């Protein structure tokens, strides 16, 4: 049996992979919102936890797919991680961001899955030589199913194309929010407009992109 790799601690790995924003690689301001949803989920408002699943499903599936040797199992393992998170939600005290906590659960669930199948995972954070890194990158790309790769690429192209088609004020607002991670107040300062206008512009930008995405997702 091959030795289990050491996965990176969540905080360090997230900082190293997704710099610029908070330690979860998310735009600013979401932690308090997540915390409020967690509070509601702890009071058995299931809709609140469902929102957290909707919000983080892609991040968790992407993370797990990169850790597992077989990415086709990613959704099963990610689902297990969310169920574990729900069952352990009572122990979440808010000492860390919700996504950091969820990240740990997802990584541990992936590790358990790997151990149970006695497979060697792809540890993309491991200290590898350049040639080894190239091999890992190639395998990561190779292991993803063609359907998943195509869909992911189509979504990326569609989103980028839809953003290019947006009026400048909407495009600026959504990019400052999603890419630069600015808060509504910071965007309002940058665009010299009220916060309410920022909120409306971001919403309208999302609606336009969503309309372009629907044919792919339905």
């Amino acid at each position, binding site marked *: 049996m091959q030795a289990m790799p050491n996965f990176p601690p969540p905080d360090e790995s997230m900082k190293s992979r997704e710099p610029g924003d908070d330690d979860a690689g998310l735009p600013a301001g979401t932690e308090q919102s997540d915390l409020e*949803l967690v509070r509601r989920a702890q009071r*058995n408002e299931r809709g609140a936890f469902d*929102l957290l699943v909707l919000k983080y*499903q*892609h991040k968790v*599936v992407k993370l797990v797919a990169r850790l597992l040797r077989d990415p086709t199992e990613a959704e099963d393992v990610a689902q297990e991680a969310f169920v574990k998170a729900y069952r352990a939600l009572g122990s979440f005290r808010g000492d860390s961001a919700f996504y950091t906590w969820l990240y740990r659960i997802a990584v541990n669930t992936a590790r358990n899955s790997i151990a149970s199948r006695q497979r060697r995972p792809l540890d993309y954070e491991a200290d590898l030589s350049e040639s080894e890194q190239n091999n890992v990158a190639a395998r990561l790309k190779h292991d993803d199913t063609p359907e998943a790769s195509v869909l992911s690429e189509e*979504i990326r192209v569609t989103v980028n194309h839809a953003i290019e088609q947006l009026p400048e004020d909407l495009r600026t607002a959504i990019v400052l929010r999603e*890419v630069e991670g600015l808060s509504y107040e910071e965007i309002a300062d940058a665009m010299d407009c009220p916060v309410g206008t920022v909120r409306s512009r971001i919403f309208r930008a*999302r609606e336009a992109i969503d309309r372009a995405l629907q044919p792919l997702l339905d």
Partner: protein
Amino acid sequence: MTDQIREQLSALLDGELPKDEMGLLVRRLEKDAALRRAFGSYALIGETLRAPGGRIATTGFAARVSAAIDDTAGVTPVAQPGLAAGAEAQWSPGQESAAAAMNPAAAAGAQRVPLWQRPMVRTALAASAAAAAVLLFRPDAAPVVADLGPPPAASDAMTNASPTPAQSQRLASYMVVHSQYSTPLVRRNVLSSLLAADPGITRVSYEMGEAP
């Protein structure tokens, strides 16, 4: 769904929705599949812009998670109060409808486990069988196992609307002996009593189709 609600949804994703607006929106989302879809799409847009490439969750993933939680929540609900002081674990009657609202697949997932197989119902069935055995079984009655034979067919059960006491006794004993949820002690007591009532019985088969 009005644009105003969807704009609230967009602000919620960004953590910019006032706290006092969140409760109503969460409740709306529990019942509105279109809102859920929109929220998932907004999240996907952000994820695509920040970290393009890689595998993403397929359509219906969140609904499957919700259904899986429904399947296990009866066993281990959110039990410990964490951030919410004094929160008590309890089954929420809206859970399955919420899963169904996310996706039709969720409804199918929630129905994957038949009602009679749910943990609480299974326990109730086993308890009912044990209670029936205690109430109906009499050691001095005619032995019921010697001529037990195969269980009545479904059509028989449908046509016999009012079972006789003897049939009820046979059914109760059958259920106790066969139920994987009845305790070994109950099963042993029932069998011992029946065997003692008829010493001529040396071997009894309880499995359908097994040779006597």
